[in-house]
């Protein structure tokens, strides 16, 4: 079949504007052929080139004394954790594939991020996942679809992660109408390596052979990067070839083989084939190496017959890698691939002419200057709408306190995610010192004798109301979660999930959120080591709420500092570090009343850091029994969770005394910079004194009790909840919704 002629329609179908096409012509000095058009189309998609977000991403702080590999340099950033050890971590989205096929979409998302990590030479040790779905309660067709998507995504993550043996130890799940039909699936993976093991993705050493290893190429996922770079529509379901199927078993073999290969010293460069497959991996390695790469497609292992160069180059078949081998070491490399039963082929070599040259049976089908293709994608400054501050709200809130707490706890975004993480193998690799269900996951990296903590956070309601403030809070909350577990934050990866950037209001959200993240990361001393941008998250109902998800990693110095959020033993004294607060804008309290309204809480860095530092200091002194940060649903939800989230329920008796604050505001406001801790009775006075000495506001809230109830008194009123009831609302809510 002859290639179709290059017409304006065909160019438009490839998502290239006339200006972009002109740029292609000037780079080539001629018209591209059909295959080259496809190559430019995927490489210049938002997913691969970040053309709409690149200028914004430059605002992130990316340097620091612990940064060994910076954001954007390689597949993932690398951070020093001491004693010659380092971690590589990153977050990646698989939103659109998951909307179309939730199980495989999520599964291949996990596979993709894991490859990014072991491409760096790191052994992946754990994963997190950050998920967003539309409302899952009720009998509406939408709710049913959302339940199907939620169930499919969770089992896809579980399938892939469990099978490959990398524990999924934490994450977050929120439910909101704005994600109807366009779920967010962000997966995070972290790997461990020695400094000297850092692998590079450059095609270096002219004359070095280029190997393909891993699964055979098929027509699956054709042009998936382009698919991720436009709006989801009804027709998206027809984009069937865009769905890839993952094979975690193959990936496990690929992972072991690649790590063995890297350890053998035979590798000059290595690059995974993710989005845009062979295209991206060849031109990026050439561009990074400052060299050229020539491959012959006839040599590529294929699963299907009759594949055209266009199809082979643009396929996004999973579980494949490109390896630049040191000349003369081919035999050793082949031996390792064979040991692991992996298909492989010597498909080309490194050249010195700066071209990405693709042949088929010796006939050149693509010849493009690699650097121009990889790095000279157009960059756009989109139009941002003018900023309008969210309207203030009237704070007179009158509600039944007892029912409201029940309802908040039963809100799927707040309810226990046990149904989710029970499906994930979180214990393999003997590292999960804090199981899912506490503020941050804590993992013992045995080979390095280090204790890591990790969390992912983003309250998109805040971001919707004020993207800058919401993004700052996402960083602050992540750092706070780490502080509660006893960790010092190290660095951040992020996943920017937004709607179509051509809409000025969306572009404003993106810019504001990036600036907020950047500012907060500077404040907390946590450089951004990399991340992912997912735009065009639109469903028939409109854009998603802006969701700049933050993944943060920290280090715990000593196993004795590992702290969990649940109350431990009776008579322990419960203290609040921070103020009582008053802000209810953008709160879940308002959401319950169907209102997404008002400004989110303000973040004061000085206060926030004082609270976090104080908590960490007390933990290090061995004074803290439990620590839990205040987030959605405020103090009351925090206290209920502290009662319920341990191995068994533990009661609490709280007395606020006289506060002069309306009870609903007192109990459910979402002001920032607050942590509830419990301490042994005999230490309570000393702890309060220490906090006062540090200048951190604090007060006693009550005691852990032996009665199976949560009792709260304030300003002359008193409320009582039996833990069994609370457990029903909070603990089993999602299971009830999902299992019927």
């Amino acid at each position, binding site marked *: 079949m002859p290639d179709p002629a290059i017409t304006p329609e065909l160019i438009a179908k490839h998502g290239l504007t006339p200006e972009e096409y002109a740029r292609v012509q000037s780079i080539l000095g001629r018209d591209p052929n059909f295959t080259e058009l496809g190559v430019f189309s995927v490489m210049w998609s938002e997913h691969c080139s970040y053309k709409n977000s690149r200028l914004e991403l430059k605002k992130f702080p990316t340097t620091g004394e612990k940064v060994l590999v910076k954001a954007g340099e390689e597949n993932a950033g690398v951070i020093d954790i001491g004693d010659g050890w380092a971690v590589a971590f990153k977050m990646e989205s698989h939103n659109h594939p998951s909307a*179309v*096929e939730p199980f*495989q979409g999520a599964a291949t998302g996990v596979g993709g991020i894991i490859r990014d990590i072991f491409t760096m030479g790191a052994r992946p040790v754990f994963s997190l996942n950050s998920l967003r779905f539309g409302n899952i309660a009720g009998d509406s067709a939408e709710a049913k679809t959302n339940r199907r998507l939620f169930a499919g995504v969770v089992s896809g993550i579980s399938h892939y992660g469990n099978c490959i043996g990398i524990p999924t130890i934490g994450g977050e799940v929120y439910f909101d109408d704005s994600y109807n039909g366009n779920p967010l699936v962000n997966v995070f993976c972290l790997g461990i390596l020695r400094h000297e093991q850092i692998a590079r993705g450059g095609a270096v050493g002219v004359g070095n052979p280029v190997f393909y290893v891993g*699964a055979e190429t*098929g*027509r*699956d996922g054709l042009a998936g990067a382009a698919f991720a770079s436009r709006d989801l529509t009804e027709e998206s*379901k027809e984009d*069937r*070839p865009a*769905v*890839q*199927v*993952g*094979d975690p*078993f*193959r990936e496990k073999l690929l992972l072991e083989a690649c790590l063995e290969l890297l350890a053998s010293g035979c590798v000059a460069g290595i690059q995974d084939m993710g989005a845009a497959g062979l295209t991206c991996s060849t031109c990026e390695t050439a561009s990074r190496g400052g060299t050229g790469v020539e491959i012959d497609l006839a040599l590529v292992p294929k*699963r*299907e017959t009759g594949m055209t160069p266009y199809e082979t180059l643009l396929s996004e*078949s*999973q579980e494949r890698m490109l390896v630049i081998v040191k000349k003369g070491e081919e035999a050793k490399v082949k031996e390792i691939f064979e040991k692991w039963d992996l298909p492989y082929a010597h498909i080309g070599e490194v050249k010195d002419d700066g071209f990405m040259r693709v042949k088929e049976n010796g006939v050149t089908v693509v010849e493009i200057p690699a650097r121009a293709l990889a790095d000279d994608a157009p960059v756009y400054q989109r139009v941002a709408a003018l900023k309008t501050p969210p309207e203030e709200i009237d704070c007179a809130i009158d509600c039944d306190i007892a029912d409201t707490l029940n309802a908040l706890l039963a809100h799927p975004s707040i309810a226990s995610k046990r149904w989710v993480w029970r499906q994930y193998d979180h214990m393999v690799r003997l590292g999960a010192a804090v199981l899912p269900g506490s503020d941050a996951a804590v993992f013992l990296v045995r080979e390095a004798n280090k204790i890591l903590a990790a969390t992912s956070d983003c309250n998109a309601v805040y971001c919707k109301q004020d993207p800058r403030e919401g993004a700052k809070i996402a960083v602050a909350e992540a750092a706070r979660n780490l502080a509660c577990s006893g960790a010092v934050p190290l660095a951040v990866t992020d996943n920017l999930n937004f709607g179509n950037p051509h809409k000025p209001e969306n572009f404003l959200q993106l810019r504001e959120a990036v600036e907020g993240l950047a500012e907060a990361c500077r404040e907390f001393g946590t450089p951004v080591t990399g991340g992912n941008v997912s735009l065009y998250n639109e469903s028939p109902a409109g854009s998603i709420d802006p969701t700049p998800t933050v993944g943060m990693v920290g280090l715990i110095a000593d196993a004795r500092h590992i702290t969990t959020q649940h109350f431990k033993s009776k008579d322990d004294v419960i203290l609040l570090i921070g103020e009582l607060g008053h802000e209810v804008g953008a709160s879940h309290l308002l959401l319950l009343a169907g209102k997404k309204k008002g400004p989110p809480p303000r973040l004061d860095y000085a206060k926030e850091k004082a609270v976090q530092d104080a908590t960490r200091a007390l933990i290090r002194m061995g004074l803290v029994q439990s620590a839990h940060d205040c987030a959605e649903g405020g103090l009351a939800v925090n206290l209920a969770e502290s009662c319920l989230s341990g191995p068994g329920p533990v009661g609490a008796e709280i007395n606020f005394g006289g506060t002069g604050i309306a009870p609903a505001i007192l109990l459910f406001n979402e002001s920032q910079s607050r942590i509830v801790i419990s301490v042994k009775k005999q230490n309570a006075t000393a702890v309060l004194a220490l906090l006062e000495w540090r200048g951190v506001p604090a007060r006693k809230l009550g005691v852990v009790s032996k009665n199976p109830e949560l009792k709260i008194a304030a300003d002359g009123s008193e409320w009582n909840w039996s833990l069994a009831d609370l457990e029903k609302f909070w603990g089993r809510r999602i299971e009830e919704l999902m299992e019927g």
Partner: protein
Amino acid sequence: MGLVAPGVIILLSAAHGQEILPSVKAIVTVMPKPSVLDPQGAATAEAMKHLGLENVGHVRVGKSIEIELPDGADEAKLHEIARDLLSNPVIEDYTIQINH
């Protein structure tokens, strides 16, 4: 490709020694589409080769769902269910066989 074109209902009369049931038995076969990766099929083919069936070709593993229905059940409905519940049209084809 399945034995039968995707989505076509074939009514087989009981023959070939099948047992005759008072009610209807429908068998929905759901197979991965030919273009979709089928790691399970590939692994199975590998294992079959090791067990001595050296020149085995493509192997694909799908689902077979046996459904007992009362006589006169709504076959259009069954069709719909096969499409929406039992298979995922994005990656799978299905066939229905109904034995009266």
